[in-house]
C-alpha cells in the first residue's frame, strides 16, 4: 500500500507537481513536518536476518525439517532508530565507515528496502541513482536503452522523445546510437546512463558514489552538471567516502556508525569528528 503511494510520488510530473506522502512501517505519520523539509526520517530501523544455515530451495527446507529444523538466525540491525531531516535545496552528506548503514539509508529512501520501524516522509520526486544503468539490456541498441532507462526512471514516451537529442549529445554518443549496447565500452555505457538519468528532472537526488565515471573530461562535465542541479535548488543526498568532495559539496552532514547516528551538523565539524573516530580506531 505505502509503496505504491510512494511510487506515485516519485513519478509526479516534474517539480511543479510535487505532492506529499509517506512510506514507512505503518507507524505514525506526523503531519507536523514543516514545509521546508524535503526529507524527514524519524526512528528509522532496518533489520536484516542472517540465517545460520541459508535455505533457498524447497528441498533445503524439507531436508531441514527431517534433520530437526534449525530455523535460527541472527538479527543484524543495519539501522537503529535513525532520525534526521533534509531541508529543501540542501546538499546533505552521509559519511561513515564501511558497514555503517550509509547505503541502507539510501535504499530505504529510494523505497527499495522496506523499513522495519520508523517512518520516512518525502516531498517531491526522488531520483534513485543508486547505480547507473539499471535495467540496461546489452542486446538492445543504445537508443532503445535510453528509452528503456527513461521509462525505468518514470518518464513518459513523449518526455523521452523531447530529451533524446540532448541525452545523446551530452553522452557524446550520437554516432553510436544504433549500436548494440554490448558493443560499447564500459565508459560509454556509464556516460549514456548518467546522461539519461540526469534528464529526469528530480527534486531530490540520491547519489551513491557514482560520480567517478567515464574519462576525466566527462567527470568534469558530470561534476558541473551536479553543481548546476545543486544551484537550481534541488535537494541532494550524497553518500561518499571521498571526504574532500563531501566538504566541497555538502552544507550539512551525518556521520553513521554501526547503524546509529553519531552526529549531525555542519560538514566541517562532522568530518573532523569522523577523522578523530578513525584515529581512535587505529590506536586500539
Amino acid at each position: 500500500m505505502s509503496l505504491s503511494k510512494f511510487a506515485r510520488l516519485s513519478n509526479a510530473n516534474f517539480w511543479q507537481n510535487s505532492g506529499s506522502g509517506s512510506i514507512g512501517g505503518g507507524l505514525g505519520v506526523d503531519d507536523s513536518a514543516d514545509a521546508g523539509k524535503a526529507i524527514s526520517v524519524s526512528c528509522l530501523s532496518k533489520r536484516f536476518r542472517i540465517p545460520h544455515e541459508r535455505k533457498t530451495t524447497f528441498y533445503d527446507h524439507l531436508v531441514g525439517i527431517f534433520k530437526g529444523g534449525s530455523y535460527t538466525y541472527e538479527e543484524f540491525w543495519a539501522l537503529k532508530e535513525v532520525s534526521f531531516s533534509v531541508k529543501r535545496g540542501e546538499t546533505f552528506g552521509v559519511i561513515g565507515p564501511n558497514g555503517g548503514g550509509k547505503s541502507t539509508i539510501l535504499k530505504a529512501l529510494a523505497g527499495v528496502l522496506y523499513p522495519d520501524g520508523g517512518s520516512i516522509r518525502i516531498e517531491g520526486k526522488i531520483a534513485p541513482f543508486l547505480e547507473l544503468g539499471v535495467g540496461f539490456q546489452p542486446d538492445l541498441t543504445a537508443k532503445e536503452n535510453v528509452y528503456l532507462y527513461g521509462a525505468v526512471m518514470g518518464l513518459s514516451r513523449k518526455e523521452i522523445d523531447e530529451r533524446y537529442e540532448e541525452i545523446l549529445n551530452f553522452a557524446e554518443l550520437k554516432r553510436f546510437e544504433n549500436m548494440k549496447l554490448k558493443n560499447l565500452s564500459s565508459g560509454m555505457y556509464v556516460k549514456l546512463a548518467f546522461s539519461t538519468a540526469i534528464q529526469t528532472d528530480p527534486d531530490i537526488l540520491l547519489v551513491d558514489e557514482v560520480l567517478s565515471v567515464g574519462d576525466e573530461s566527462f567527470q568534469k562535465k558530470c561534476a558541473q552538471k551536479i553543481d548546476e542541479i545543486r544551484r537550481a535548488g534541488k535537494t541532494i543526498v550524497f553518500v561518499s567516502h571521498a571526504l574532500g568532495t563531501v566538504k566541497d559539496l555538502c552544507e550539512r552532514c551525518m556521520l553513521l556508525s554501526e547503524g546509529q547516528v553519531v552526529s549531525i551538523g555542519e560538514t566541517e565539524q562532522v568530518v573532523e569528528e569522523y577523522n578523530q573516530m578513525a584515529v581512535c580506531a587505529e590506536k586500539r
Partner: protein
Amino acid sequence: MWIVEYRELIRILTISDLKVKYQGSALGFAWSLLNPLLMMLVLYAVFSNVFRFEQENFALYLLIGIVSWRFLQIGTTTAMTAIAGKPSLVTKVCIPRQVLVLSSVLSGFISSILEFSVLIPLLIFFGVKFSFSIAFFPLIHATYFLLVYGIGLILAALYVYYRDLNQIWDVLLQAGFFLSPVVYPISIVPEKYLGYYMLNPMTIIMEMYRESLLYSKAPSGAEVALSLAAGFGLLLAGTFVFKRLERRFAEEI
C-alpha cells in the same frame, strides 16, 4: 494506478521480451507458430491411431487445446523468473515490481494471440464455419489472462525465496496438462470423477475456446461466471501473496 503511470515501461519491457524471444533463432517468429503445429501433428498421429476418440473435428480440437495450453505454460514459467531474473530492477531502483511480472505475462499473451490468429486460416481450411460466437473470444482470452497473471504473481514472488520452484512447477504443469482436456475429449472422463474434474478452471476455459471457435456455440452463463470468478480470484490471491512477499525481495535476491 501503477499500470497507467508505468505504461511506458510495461510497453518497452513487453516489446523487448518479444524481441529477445523472436530474434533468438533464424526462423524466429515462424518457430513459435510451427511449434504448436508440429506438436499437433505428433499428438494427432498418436491420438487418432492409438487412442480413438469420437470427437468432431479432432485435429482442430487438439490444436485449440494445445495453443491455449501454451499460454499457461509459457506465461507462468516466464513470469516465475520475472523478479529473480532482473535483480537490478528490484534492488537498485524503486518501481512497482508487478510491472516486471505483468510485462512478461503480456508478452506471452501477445504471442498467444498471434498463435490463435494463425489458427483462423486453418479453421477455415478445415471447413469450420464461423458464427457470432467468435465474438466471445476476446472475453475468454482476457479472463484467461487474469488467471495466468494471478498465478504468475504467486510464482514470481515465491521463486525469489525458493529457487527450485521451477522444478516443482514443471511437474505440476505436466500433471495439469493431463488433468485438463488438452489432448482428449471430456467425454472419456469417468462419470464419478466428473464433478471434481470440472473444478479445474482450465477445463472451463478450454471448453469455452472450443465452443466459441469450433462449435459455433456461445459459452453458457455458468461457464462465463465460473471462469471470471477463477480469473479474478487468482488475480486477488496473486496480488495479496505478492504484496506480502515483496517487502524482502531486495534482501533475498
